[in-house]
């Protein structure tokens, strides 16, 4: 092992083999979930190339056509291709869901870890705030914000950024309170490491497990939240394709053209299942009890 190899980390065969071993140890559940999710993400990212039609292109010659080889998911009452709209909808739901989940997770985990480590009044304050916020009926809060600033994705972002971090803070705090009594943490403290380093470099990697697993469930819930809000008309506005809004559009045609409502729903279910599989696989891999629902 040359000293240079330590100072300038490069991807050498040993590292690749270790990565290969790590991936090999993943359960079937985890791999299946990742595969599914990657496929969906791929289609979303490359939507302009994958989607056969322009999602907003209206063609009155082909309205309310059932699924066939040209229009895999059929068309809606304005002649728009549902398949393309679903793919474009994935862009919105996935990206919004991602932001809604992982942005609050970042500062939520940090706040929780710090509060859990410090204890005292910081912990008491954070603890009461999180306990309060978790009991808020979330959708109601978002609707209140919508009432103030109007429908659209911004209302959702504002509410989520204000409130969603609390669940992560709670999880991270609980884990940190267990972790801080462990010997390696006490050793770091005795050695004079600043709190910042102890919490970030040593405590955090070991307390992040349940938050990561929960994030997959949270992702699903956030997609459901966004689509639900759009369904009742307070979220994404037409004509932008979004799964929930599309389901709402199809509501009045449910008898003659069931595919308008049903297809976007399948997309949500598929994405959600993929995320659940990942969550379960991660839970097993990380050794935490808390898997996603199912």
């Amino acid at each position, binding site marked *: 092992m040359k000293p240079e190899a330590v100072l300038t980390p490069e991807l050498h065969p040993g590292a690749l083999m270790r990565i290969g071993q790590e991936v090999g140890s993943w359960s079937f559940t985890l791999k299946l979930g990742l595969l599914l999710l990657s496929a969906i993400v791929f289609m979303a990212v490359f939507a302009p190339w994958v989607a056969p039609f322009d999602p907003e292109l209206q063609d009155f010659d082909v309205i309310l056509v059932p699924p066939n080889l040209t229009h895999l998911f059929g068309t809606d009452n304005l002649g728009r291709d549902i398949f393309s709209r679903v793919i474009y909808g994935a862009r919105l739901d996935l990206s919004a869901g991602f932001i809604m989940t992982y942005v609050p997770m970042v500062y939520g985990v940090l706040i929780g870890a710090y509060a859990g480590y410090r204890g005292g009044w910081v912990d008491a304050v954070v603890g*009461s705030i999180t306990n309060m916020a*978790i009991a808020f009926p979330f959708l*109601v809060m978002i609707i209140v914000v919508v009432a103030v600033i109007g429908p659209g994705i911004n209302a959702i972002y504002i509410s989520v950024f204000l409130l969603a971090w609390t669940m992560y803070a709670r999880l991270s705090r609980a884990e940190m309170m267990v972790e801080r009594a462990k010997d390696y943490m006490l050793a770091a403290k005795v050695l004079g490491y600043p709190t910042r380093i102890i919490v970030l470099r040593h405590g955090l990697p070991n307390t992040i497990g349940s938050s990561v697993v929960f994030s997959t469930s949270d992702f699903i819930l956030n997609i*459901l939240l966004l689509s*639900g809000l759009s*369904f009742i008309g307070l979220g994404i506005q037409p004509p932008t394709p979004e799964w929930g809004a599309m*389901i709402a559009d199809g509501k009045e045609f449910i008898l003659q053209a069931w595919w308008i409502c049903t297809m976007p729903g399948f997309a949500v*279910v598929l*994405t959600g299942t993929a995320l659940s599989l990942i969550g379960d696989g991660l839970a097993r891999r990380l050794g935490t009890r808390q898997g996603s629902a199912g």
Partner: protein
Amino acid sequence: MLVVRYVIARVLHTLPVLLGVTLFTFLAIQFVPGDPIRIMTRGHVSDAEVAAIYDRLGMNRPLAVQYGSFIAKAATGDLGESIIQHAPVAELVGEKVAPTLWLLGIGTFFSILLALPLALLSAAWPDSLFDHTVRTASMVGFAMPPFWIGLLLILGFGLQLGWVPISGYGDDVLGHVTHLILPGLTIAFFLAPILIQSLRASLLDALDADHIEVARARGVPEWRIYFKHALRNALLPTLTVLSVNISWLVSGAVVVESVFALPGLGSLLIRSVGYRDYPLIQGLALIFALIVVAVNLTADLCYGIVDRRVLRVAA
């Protein structure tokens, strides 16, 4: 007595939540761009009348005073007055609260009805085909949007088969129940997976406990070990999970009300947004928080009944 102290402690714990929600709503409304009264009245009134309304509602006073006054009045049941509908908020809410409560009740009932046997059987034969099927179905069910399930149920059972009514609320108790079958099932699809996963996991955990082995050594038959000892111990973590998810249950109920055209608080809320009826929105937010808090309290009390250890830590 320990029990009384526990109950009082749990009730006191609910106050911060109620205050938090009302504060959030109150402050949020302050951020309405433009003039809220003008928005609400849509310019149908003159400037002088707008000023008079401001005075009457006391909206020229400092924020803290306004908030304090709202809380004080709310405590006595006065939630203000809806500008749009010219009626006390409390009255409007009162008319619509019943369907929502029915929905929540029937939804929870169906969820438990579905989740309990499935979780019990899954945990009795872990890793069996049945277990894997249940867990996969749970996973998929959790990912289904409630409004989507609702529509599918309407399509299937309501329109194609015509077995049950698909919208509205019915006129008498029997009517309520039949009208709430599909909405209740919709909620169950969403809540049951959470319950199943939690109950199954806690049953497996409970079965691992030392005292279970001791019970076997005492000669207690397997079925009684399962239903009497393991189950009761497993209910506790599941109750906690249920508590945490109550707010999602309520959120789901709002959407379900929209799908099935139920005349409940959810529909009222959605409409009040359209009208920018801020006093009504404020009152509704409080009521929703109250519902969540009440359910949580019930769960806490049940917890105290099932496991006496909890009563000690009442502080």
